[in-house]
């Protein structure tokens, strides 16, 4: 563990690259999590929840 952190801080290029990659990965998971909660919180009101009531047999071309 300690050696891993040493490795990380040894070279600035690796340090910066780790931060960038970490931010990218974090945003992916964070956005998915927040959106999941948000859509659960508003379930039944969103277009994706109600469009089945109007469209016969799956209108594939939305957005």
């Amino acid at each position, binding site marked *: 563990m300690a050696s891993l952190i040493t490795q990380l801080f040894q070279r600035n290029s690796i340090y910066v690259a780790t931060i960038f990659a970490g931010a990218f990965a974090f945003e992916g998971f964070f*956005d998915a999590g927040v959106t999941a909660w948000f859509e659960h919180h*508003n379930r039944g*009101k969103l277009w994706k929840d109600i*469009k089945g009531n*109007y469209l016969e047999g799956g*209108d594939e071309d*939305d957005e």
Partner: protein
Amino acid sequence: MTQKLIVGSVGVTGLTTSYLLYQDSLTANAMTAAEHGLHPPAYGWSHNGMFDTFDHASIRRGYQVYKEVCAACHSLDRIAWRNLVGVSHSTSEAKAFAEELEYDDEPDDEGNPKKRPGKLADYIPAPYPNEQAARAANQGALPPDLSLIVKARHGGSDYIFSLLTGYPDDPPAGVVLPPGANYNPYFPGGSIAMGRVLFDGLVEYEDGTPATTSQMAKDVTTFLNWASEPDNDERKRWGLKALIVVSSLYLISIWVKRFKWQPIKNRKFRFDPPKKN
């Protein structure tokens, strides 16, 4: 000395009061509560909360009310057919709406104007070609464009809903209205050119919702609120993300500050005076 002070302060107070009363008497404010319009009550809209999106089924019904009722006089200039896609209608439905209408096309080789069927990028057409035509058809009153009406009126959605449902059967005794005007207590001044338009059963909803006056008013207000703030749903989702990230960073910054300052705040200095011989 004390007496002089009392007399002096009484004099100053009197002069100040006279001056303020005189200043106030220079302007007359004729605005009464009726001229401001009745304040609408605060309704529990389903999109009121910090993280609440619009009720999209309501937007869809509201579009139907707009199309069948409001669009006879009111334009919706800033909404294009494409804006409905993924909000209240599918791509093919919005395309079908647009294709029913004709829009100006490029002129042909001899310069004659041509028409073409509408496409998704076209805007919802206005009922009148220009303001003069709109005024001429409405006894001199201009029906406002509804694209931003919810943002453009005090009270927003509550006001629009109250106005649509607030027409009394008869104006109160003593109210004199100009010819052709209607009475609505929510409208500033009380005299409004638009008459009551929503009556029970005026439209027939495809989802079977009973089309009462208040249901139609609620749906069309939700639709107009969406037209004014189409960013609402995305904005609230981003707001949630921003709140989480920014408050986490704030708490981390507090922790880092305490961590860094702890040894500095806790250290003690001791002065050992040099021993005298």
